[in-house]
């Protein structure tokens, strides 16, 4: 958590796609810059340090492949993900040959893009989420799926683990029940938000938070993780 968040440059001309990429990636903890055409993309890239570029192949001014080549020639370490339309298969191959790390095909899902971004960053050894998060005496390791409280292992179900990880990675952020349901149970989960309450209740029991000090209930809003407030109790 101490390292700076990964910096992402999005070069895309479609207003709405830019909009959701920016909001979505920022929410996921990335630092996002936007370029609406090829030239401004290259200018931004030359001026700043980026870990990752999301590049649309179809831009009004410059050929996406040309941009890809230039980006790669300037910076051999940056991760590049291409956004393509399905019919441009030769473009995808050319793009990969020109140094892109991966591509997603429109229409793509945000989760898929996110997964690929994380995978590419991992491969490139770029800054990303640390596997280990620690707060209020709880140590969570997402690589080994282990949780310790004051050195004692705690046994969590996968859903409880995901909940705890989300809370610990975003301390103080208030998550509504809908958001928790969407992120952990998936968009297509048919059940109601009570399941979130039940899991939060179990999680509190397991991490010894019966007082609801660590995982707070924000009435009318949702839940948030408050390790700083808890330190006085520890």
């Amino acid at each position: 958590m101490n390292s700076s968040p990964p910096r992402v440059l999005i070069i895309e001309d479609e207003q709405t796609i830019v909009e959701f990429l920016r909001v979505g990636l920022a929410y996921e903890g990335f630092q996002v810059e936007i370029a609406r055409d090829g030239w401004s993309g290259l200018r931004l890239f030359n001026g700043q340090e980026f870990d990752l570029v999301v590049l649309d192949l179809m831009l009004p001014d410059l050929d996406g492949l040309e941009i890809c080549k230039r980006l790669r020639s300037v910076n051999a370490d940056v991760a590049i993900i291409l956004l393509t339309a399905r019919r441009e298969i030769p473009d995808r191959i050319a793009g990969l040959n020109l140094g892109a790390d991966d591509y997603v095909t429109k229409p793509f899902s945000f989760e898929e893009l996110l997964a690929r971004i994380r995978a590419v960053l991992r491969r490139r050894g770029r800054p990303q989420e640390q596997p280990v998060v620690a707060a209020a005496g709880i140590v969570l390791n997402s690589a080994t799926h282990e949780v310790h409280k004051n050195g004692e292992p705690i046994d969590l179900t996968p859903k409880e683990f995901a909940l705890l990880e989300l809370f610990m990675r975003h301390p103080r952020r208030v998550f509504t029940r809908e958001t928790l349901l969407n992120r952990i149970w998936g968009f297509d989960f048919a059940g109601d938000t009570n399941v979130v309450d039940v899991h939060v209740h179990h999680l509190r029991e397991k991490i010894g938070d019966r007082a609801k000090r660590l995982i707070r209930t924000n009435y009318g809003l949702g839940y948030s993780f408050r390790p700083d407030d808890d330190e006085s109790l520890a």
Partner: protein
Amino acid sequence: MAWDIAFDPMMMSRWRKSSLRTRLTILYVALLVLLLTGLGALLYWDVKAFLISSTAVRLRAQAKPVIERWLMDVQAGEAATQFLLSIAASLARDLTSRDTTALILDHNGAVLANGRLLPEEPLPAPVDPERVARALAGENEITYSVMVGDQHTMVLLIPLRPQPGHPYIVGVAQLNTPLTAVDQILWREQRLIIFGSVLTILLGMAGSFWLTSSALRPLRRMTDACRRIAAGDFSERVNLPPRHSGQTRDEVVQLASAFNDMITRIEDTFASQQRFIADAAHELRTPLTAIKGSLEVLLRGSQDDPTNAKRLTRAMYNEVERLSRLTEQLLDLTQLQNGIILHRSLIDLERWLQEEFMPQAHLLVKESHLELRPGEPAKLYVDPDALKQVLFNLIDNAVQHTSTSGNIQLGWQVTATAVSIWVADDGEGIAPADLPHIFSPFYRGDRSRSRLRGGAGLGLTIVKRIVEAHGGQVRVASTPGEGTCVTLLFPVNPVLSGV
């Protein structure tokens, strides 16, 4: 028999079910049989009549001098009868030969003498009293044939007169000659005709079968090609014989050639339809990506921040707008492709533009100026709704490609042959490289810019289709940086427009 078969309903249905080749062959052979039978019969009867009459003529010619010599000195009356009685045996013998036996009959029809002495001489036919009576009454040319035993025999009756042409008739000479030779000739003739006919019919059958087969072969190929095309292979064609110069193609080859042309056309249409669908799907992809991604981002938690939620919702709304515009245009285009039904009426162009079109157009053009530049009075026989759609599309395009301070002009010109309506703007213009493609569906010169304002690249395609359905043309002149002028040429119908 043949008629019974023809009217048998079973046979009729089987006839209708049989192949064209079978039917043609059967018809051809039937015709051949009819023709050959008729001709053969005719020939047979003709030869028979000739042979019989020539035999009769020969016998009469041989008998005539003998009879004249014997009856030279006879006098009419009772003496003649006596005389005939005295010479009858000798006369009969003189008239008899290897192939002819003579009987001499008196004026009562009684046999006076039989010339047959030797066994090889033919047997005489029995006397036919009725015919003898006719001969005695003066009939000269009585010839008939009867069966004597198993022998076909020709009988000639010759009245005996004192001199040729004399009215008095003493008696009758009956010459009997067997028709053995004639029958033999006729039998041979018959065989020849039958054999020849059968051979000809067989050859004709084979020939007609081959002929119809070869004539119908392209049809068969066409059937095969049709089946393969039905199975989805549009590259299929009927093989045509190579065309030599000056050689006319028969009807079936012409049909096959027309069929190939048709398939080429269908293939083109099909390919362009597929391209169109692929393009349409491609167009749907971007808004769908945007909406899907936005929804995901919202559901993942951004909805908890009202600012983000509002931004993304608004963006999604715009995308949905875009999708419905695109769908609308696709529907329009599909209707145009299905064949346009124009509801034409005669409009006064200036009045229609002033009263009908401009008020609505001004709702659309808020930022840019839209100016009407009237030309000479003109009447047009067009579908007003279609014309409205065309002009809206053009003005919409002009709006998209001009700056907010840009100018759009709408005007018309009248010439002897056409009324040309033009829409001009002072916008960014069209790059020369893009000009040839602007009427293609989904083509956008400057992709992102026009997409931002919502065009799907179908507007000009729709314009062109509608104007061409009116028999008109669309022309585009454009200079990058200076502006674009689209001209619609509607041919003038002198009767209807009254110009």
